[in-house]
């Protein structure tokens, strides 16, 4: 039975200028899961995170963290929450280790040099501990942000585009970090523009656009529901009609019978299997084909599709 760690109901935020950044968001996050929040620029991801973390004052709705109302128990609750914001921001002139200690103290945790060392080592920052932050590379600076957020051992961690502007190697490194945190039982909510990141890391995925949650589901379920394989067979001599053995498949003819198009599958590999079967059937029927193109829809396609469909159901 999943235990909810964060419960958001009817959350609204209208900024002073009149921009409605959140428009009735309902979202439940369970303990120990990794939740990826996907959405285009300006969808409201940062605003949503800011509302939970105390950077933004919601204009409506209710937030419960660890079963406590955020509006009244914010002080207890925040000790357990960590935030890595989208932008790099700290006292650039300070030393790495001092900034990490500072964060730990600010969140009310007792000094613990061993834990600070552990955090710095896990992020490959230990050798740089006495460097001024401004001397570090961009990727290293981002790690310092993460180290600061982890310094007080939060139970719930928000990562706002943790891998923006980070090279491939560092990104993989970051994913390993997230995996380690998952093993420690930390619940993680991350926002990202990189679909592969959500596919790689997340247990569940939520899609947000224009301040509304369009879809929330298990990553695999989303793939199963919307994952599609598309295949184009280029047939040598035009077919007048679909050969009988093929009629059970989601196929049709295009371009005067010179192209056989398959659209199906559910993201579990069924699509690829059926395309292989089709190829064998065509060969067995003596239908020669000179080309085969297949395409798997990614989370990105799903996401783009969703954004272009009218909103049907909000999870």
């Amino acid at each position, binding site marked *: 039975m999943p235990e909810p760690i964060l419960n958001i109901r009817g959350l609204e935020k209208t900024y002073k200028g009149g921009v409605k950044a959140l428009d009735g968001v309902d979202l439940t996050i369970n303990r120990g899961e990794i939740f990826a929040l996907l959405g285009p620029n300006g969808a409201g991801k940062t605003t949503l995170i*800011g509302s939970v973390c105390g950077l933004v004052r919601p204009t409506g709705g209710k937030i419960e963290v660890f079963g406590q109302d955020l509006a009244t128990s914010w*002080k207890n609750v*925040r000790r357990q929450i960590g*935030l890595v914001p989208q932008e790099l921001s700290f006292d650039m002139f300070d030393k790495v280790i001092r900034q990490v200690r*500072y964060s730990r*103290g*600010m969140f*009310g945790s007792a000094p613990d040099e061993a834990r600070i060392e552990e955090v710095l080592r896990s992020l490959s920052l230990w050798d740089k501990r006495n460097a001024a932050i401004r001397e570090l590379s961009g990727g290293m600076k981002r790690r310092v942000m993460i180290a600061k957020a982890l310094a007080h051992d939060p139970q719930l961690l928000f990562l706002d585009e943790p891998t923006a502007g980070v090279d491939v190697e560092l990104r993989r490194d970051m994913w390993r970090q997230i995996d380690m945190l998952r093993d420690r039982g930390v619940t993680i909510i991350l926002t990202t523009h990189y679909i592969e990141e959500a596919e790689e890391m997340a247990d569940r995925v939520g899609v947000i656009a224009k301040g509304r949650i369009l879809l929330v589901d298990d990553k695999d379920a989303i793939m199963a529901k919307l994952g599609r394989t598309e295949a184009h067979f280029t047939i040598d001599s035009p077919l007048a009609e679909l050969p009988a053995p093929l009629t059970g498949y989601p196929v049709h003819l295009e371009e005067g019978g010179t192209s056989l198009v398959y659209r199906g599958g559910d993201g579990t590999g069924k699509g690829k299997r059926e395309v292989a079967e089709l190829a064998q059937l065509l060969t067995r029927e003596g239908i020669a084909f000179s080309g085969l193109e297949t395409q798997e829809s990614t989370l990105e396609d799903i996401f783009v599709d969703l954004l272009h469909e009218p909103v049907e159901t909000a999870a």
Partner: protein
Amino acid sequence: MTFNARGTYAIFKNELMRMFRTIFGSILSPVITTSLYLVVFGAAMGDRMDLGGVNYGAFIVPGLLMLTLLSESTSNASFGIYMPKFTGAIYELLSAPVGVAETLIGFVGAAAVKSLILAAIILGTAALIVDYSIAHPILALGYIVLVAASFSLLGFIIGLWADGFEKLQIIPLLVLMPLTFLGGTFYPISALEGPWQYVAMVNPVVYLVSGLRWTFLGESDFPIMLSFGATLGFLLICIAVIGWIFKTGWRLRE
């Protein structure tokens, strides 16, 4: 809702370390400036001033101390809270289990403590240059603490209010500096010509300087209780303003 003592201490320590990161800017520069005033006005010109028995050097020590206290407290505290707003590092403070009390004690406390350290150094240096004594040491200390705290609070408000470096400088430079110079730092209000005495009396800094001077010399332009009451009133107003700021999230939360 328990008080986050560790968080308060972390902020306090971080602020103090930040302020003392550069010894020159934080200590040497105010000490040198004050010493120069003392040398030029106190030691060199002092003989020509007639203050009815009081040595001129001893007369301007509390005035100069007040000048330093006001400008240092205000600028340190305003810078302390403005910088994280400017760099974005404020996100951490806003997301931490840190409320009004913790923030105020941490930021304002550090700025006030720095002013006190500076005051001690300045008084020590002044003793090398001019001959002075403190008539009511305990009251003097209490008064210095009160002024340092009040103006650190004012600095904190300025730092919150400022949305650019210009605004950060405007009040210290355009309001505090002139008021202090015109506030009897270098002369007794009684030395002013008729109507100017009344003009001086609407300058609040006059009462601050007068109060501190009373604790040093045992006499001054105004009764000590008036000065003390005015300073305390100012402190309470600052606290009320800050309370309102945190309640509404003004200039802090979107």
